[in-house]
């Protein structure tokens, strides 16, 4: 109960930010951090709870972004010679749902593969999937405009209210983050969540007590992919331009680093990690160091976190509190 009140107060405090902080650039940084936190939370479901290291996670993000952008702009494409698929421009909210659905479908596909291949193999399959998606986005110019990118993507508007101004987008992203957090919390504390954790901890034991591996892995990837797709959808209609770079591996790395630093398999972990790594690039930029150096710092930090905080920040803090209350 106390935790709920603290969380509600925290959300209210976050919601008040645009009211007293006028700097649009900082607000932009917060919006992007929020979008990445949603993606990191979705990765956490797969990585932290179901125990699948999905290093192609950015594919779901990118598929969501592209699908939603395409449906909101409308497209015409020749699938086979003589067969033309034409879609009229759809309202943005409908396109957003389509984007999430497309990402979820990809998640279903990847989930089925995960049943066949695990560990190192799954990692490589997921990376390959993301790379194929990037190369398709780059080369299928007729559909995606290739490197010229999809431009002029409309912003979300519901009942005549357009989410064009930064504060409104900020609140939208905050609302979506809270919704995703609650959804993940409910899944994790349900039977399905316990089944996923059981699978991650000891698969033979879990199957021997009757947990259906395929079912729960597919469920985890579909939910996770849909959520990552939602983050991509928010991105597409906020930035309003989507290019093949949304599939870059470095974004998957950013998401993973957020989850692992914060603490995989904890609800608060991706948020803590997301705040740190979402804001850190801006901090480093303020120090006026070059982007390469920034990424070197990222890489070195990743190594150091694995060495010194293998469980992440949130579990380490919890351990500290437990120790203090014991004395």
């Amino acid at each position, binding site marked *: 109960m106390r935790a709920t009140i603290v969380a509600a107060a925290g959300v209210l405090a976050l919601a008040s930010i645009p009211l007293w902080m006028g700097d649009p650039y900082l607000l932009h940084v917060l919006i992007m951090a929020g979008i990445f936190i949603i993606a990191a939370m979705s990765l956490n479901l797969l990585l932290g709870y179901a125990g699948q290291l999905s290093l192609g996670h950015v594919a779901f993000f990118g598929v969501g972004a592209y699908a939603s952008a395409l449906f909101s702009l409308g497209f015409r494409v020749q699938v086979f010679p003589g067969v033309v698929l034409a879609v009229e421009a759809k309202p943005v909210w409908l396109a957003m749902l389509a984007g999430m659905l497309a990402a979820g479908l990809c998640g279903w596909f990847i989930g089925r593969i995960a049943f066949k291949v695990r*560990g190192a193999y799954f990692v490589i399959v997921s990376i*390959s999937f993301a790379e194929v998606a990037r190369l398709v986005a780059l080369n299928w110019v007729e559909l995606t405009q290739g490197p010229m990118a999809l431009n002029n993507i409309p912003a979300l508007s519901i009942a005549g209210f357009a989410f064009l101004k930064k504060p409104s987008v900020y609140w939208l992203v905050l609302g979506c983050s809270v919704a995703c957090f609650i959804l993940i919390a409910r899944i994790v504390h349900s039977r399905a969540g316990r089944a996923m954790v059981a699978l991650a901890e000891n698969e033979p034991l879990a199957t021997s007590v009757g947990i259906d591996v395929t079912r729960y892995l597919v469920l985890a990837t579909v939910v996770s992919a849909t959520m990552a797709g939602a983050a991509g959808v928010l991105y597409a209609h906020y930035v309003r331009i989507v290019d093949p770079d949304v599939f870059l591996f470095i974004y998957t790395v950013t998401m993973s680093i957020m989850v692992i630093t914060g603490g995989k398999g904890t609800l608060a972990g991706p948020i803590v990690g997301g705040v740190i790594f979402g804001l850190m690039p801006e901090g480093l930029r303020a120090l006026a160091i070059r982007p*390469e150096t920034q*990424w070197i710092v990222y*890489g070195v930090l*990743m*190594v150091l976190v694995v060495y010194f905080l*293998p469980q992440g920040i949130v579990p380490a803090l919890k351990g500290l509190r437990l120790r203090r209350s014991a004395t």
Partner: protein
Amino acid sequence: MEQLLQHGLNALMLGGTYALLGIGLTLIFGIMRVVNFTHGELYAFGAYMMYGLVMKAGVNFFAALGLAIVLGVLLGALLELVLLSRLRAADIDTTMLVMIGAWIALQNAEQLAWTGVAVSINNPFPAAPLVLGPVSVAWNRVFVFGMALLLIVATYKVINGTKLGRAMRATFQDRDTAALMGVQIGAVHTATFALGSGLAAAAGALLGPVFVAYPSMGDLAAAKAFAVVILGGLGSIPGATLGGFILALVEELGAGYISSGYRDAMGFLLIIVILLFRPTGLFARKERIG
């Protein structure tokens, strides 16, 4: 038909370097159980060492090639000692994350050191191609192919004919028993990683002068190495050798007959298809779970 022959010849020339990359990666995975994400960076390192030595320092091309490989071996040994030696008991995901961190740091260090502009490296071979009846091939590619074959044979010799090779094979079969028999597992790990890294650097040093060198060149090379290794089955050296040639052939044919834009996608598609239909790879016997 002539076109097909030409594609086949191109694939053969390219396949040698792919095999080199694949063997390095499969050795490291088979013996150390480490998914080596820095493999591509060692490839880029090899190419940039060639650039630095030949173009900046004016070293002889062939001497530079040898030096680049030796430096690759040293960098590999250093990485193993600094990053991996303390993670020998860690699970595969943990080491994978460390290697990803190292990959990002290395790649950006390369960009910092050499800037992001692609550079080309001169080679001492005649520009006129070697014409063989209906097909032709550039001399520098023939050299690359010959060197790759030489290095592959040398690797086989090391693994099957030396004491170190025997220790490596023993570790691969059963690490605990090997340790009980007096094999220095730590030293085997360092040597394996150094050898694998040296092969990657060699591939980069050979292909750098054929194409151009740029900081993120390692990414594609690593992806191709993974494709080769999965084709052959993780840990299988003959599999990786053959896998290298198969991947080169698929790429050549894909680029020639489907679309050259998807050339680099072929490897990834191959990975997905193989894992779906023949998850143990073409030549391996092991299970793909765990």
